[in-house]
């Protein structure tokens, strides 16, 4: 008597084959950087225009609602003023950073050149469809000069970096994602730490020693370490500090400067050094 019939054998073989493929796929998977496959590239280019169309039609509808059904001029003026305020706040923050930097540099009698960036404006057309990843899709890609690892910002602060890019679309790993770790420093005390995405559209500031004089309300800016983000971009604000009875570091909660709930347009910064960073990464990995 045969214990296993032909159909069961085929099932087992298929299960094993697909399981091996999946395990291989998992072993090759990286959550911090990715090159799209030809399949991904082709299907993204076909499907994403639908996402873009839907996103635009929603914007058109809400803009119709905002601008015509509600008080037309107040809404427009309010938007312009809000943008102006945030631009001025951003300028002030940058000026303050430049002033502090100048003081330090004068003291050290040396100087450093600021990174020059080409800026590409893009619209958010979609979000990652899985719960555990906080990734946004932009309507600009390689054809517009966007490269992987390029930092993405708004006038409020840091959004993330380009995770993968196709000809006309780019996926951005936001700072809300647990796979994105940003080197930051507390603006007031110059204390360095790492910001990681946690949950509920919040982040955590890690590796801050218990004796550091950080306070609730302190602002965080990028430290410029790591080669991805330029120095001085606003990241967020400390909203809660917990001193556990154990451990050497503080448990700190951070609210991002960017309101991800209302994220519509972003700026992709394309530093001339991006190519250099990309070529450095595999070399670093090989060494590890």
């Amino acid at each position, binding site marked *: 008597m045969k214990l296993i019939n032909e*159909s069961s054998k*085929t*099932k087992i*073989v*298929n*299960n094993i*084959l*697909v*399981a091996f*493929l*999946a*395990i*291989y*796929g*998992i072993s*090759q*998977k990286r*959550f911090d950087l*990715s090159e799209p496959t030809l*399949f*991904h590239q082709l*299907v*993204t280019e076909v*499907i994403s225009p*639908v*996402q873009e169309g*839907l*996103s635009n039609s*929603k*914007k058109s509808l809400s803009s119709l609602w905002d601008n015509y059904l509600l008080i037309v001029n107040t809404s427009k003026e309010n938007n312009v003023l809000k943008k102006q305020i945030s631009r001025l706040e951003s300028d002030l923050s940058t000026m303050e950073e430049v002033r502090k930097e100048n003081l330090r540099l004068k003291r050290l009698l040396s100087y450093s050149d600021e990174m020059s960036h080409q800026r590409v404006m893009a619209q958010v*057309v*979609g*979000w*990652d*469809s*899985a*719960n*555990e*990843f906080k*990734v946004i*899709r932009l309507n600009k890609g390689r054809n517009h000069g966007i490269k992987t690892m390029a930092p993405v910002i708004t006038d409020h602060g840091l959004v993330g970096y380009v*995770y*993968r890019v196709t000809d006309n679309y780019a*996926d951005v*790993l936001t700072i809300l994602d*647990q*796979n994105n770790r940003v080197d930051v420093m507390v603006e007031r005390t110059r204390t360095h730490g790492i910001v990681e995405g*946690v*949950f*509920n*559209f919040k982040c955590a500031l890690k590796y801050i020693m218990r004796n550091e004089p950080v306070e609730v309300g302190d602002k965080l800016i990028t430290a410029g370490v790591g080669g991805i983000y330029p120095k001085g971009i606003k990241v967020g604000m400390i909203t809660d500090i917990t001193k556990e009875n154990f451990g050497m570091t503080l448990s700190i909660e951070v609210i991002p400067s960017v309101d*991800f*709930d209302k994220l519509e347009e972003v700026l992709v910064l394309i530093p001339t050094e991006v190519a250099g960073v990309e070529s450095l990464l595999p070399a670093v990995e090989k060494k590890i």
Partner: protein
Amino acid sequence: MRMRFSQILISFLITLALLTGLEIVTSTLLPAMGWKEYRLTFNVLIILFLAIRMDSPLVPWLILGLQMIHSIFSIEGWALGTLAGLIVMMSANYLKEVLHLTTAFMTMLTVQLFQVIWYVTVTLIICLKISDFDKFGLILWSFIPGSILLSLISPVLFWMLGLIWRVPSDGGSRGVEI
């Protein structure tokens, strides 16, 4: 009841189109309406249907195909969900004698049970990949609200998929052999 290959192909293509539409709803339409925090992972629901209701050697390849489409919309990729789908399918095989999706409540309960298996598997693998098991609870918790909503709508989606795959509505857990 057996299905011919051409029927399987047509049903699979319709299912892929349905998944694409639902993924666009999850990734674009719902976030545009302000729902950004939780996602409805429809790929999980469709794969659960195939894993629970179908009895065929082709199911693993169908799961792989569906996950390839899901990978367009998520950096999760195809591999994680494929492995989780296989584990769910094998669990359903062992439990086939006790699974009877005859009422909407039983469908919701079964879908919730298998979603837990799915999410524990996926969360474990992600924690392994990022070498951080402190986040296990946080990641698993992020799935819960969406999974409950998915369970609630599962009878409707299973009914639609039943029509696409020609599964009799009063059938047992392993409705159609292909």
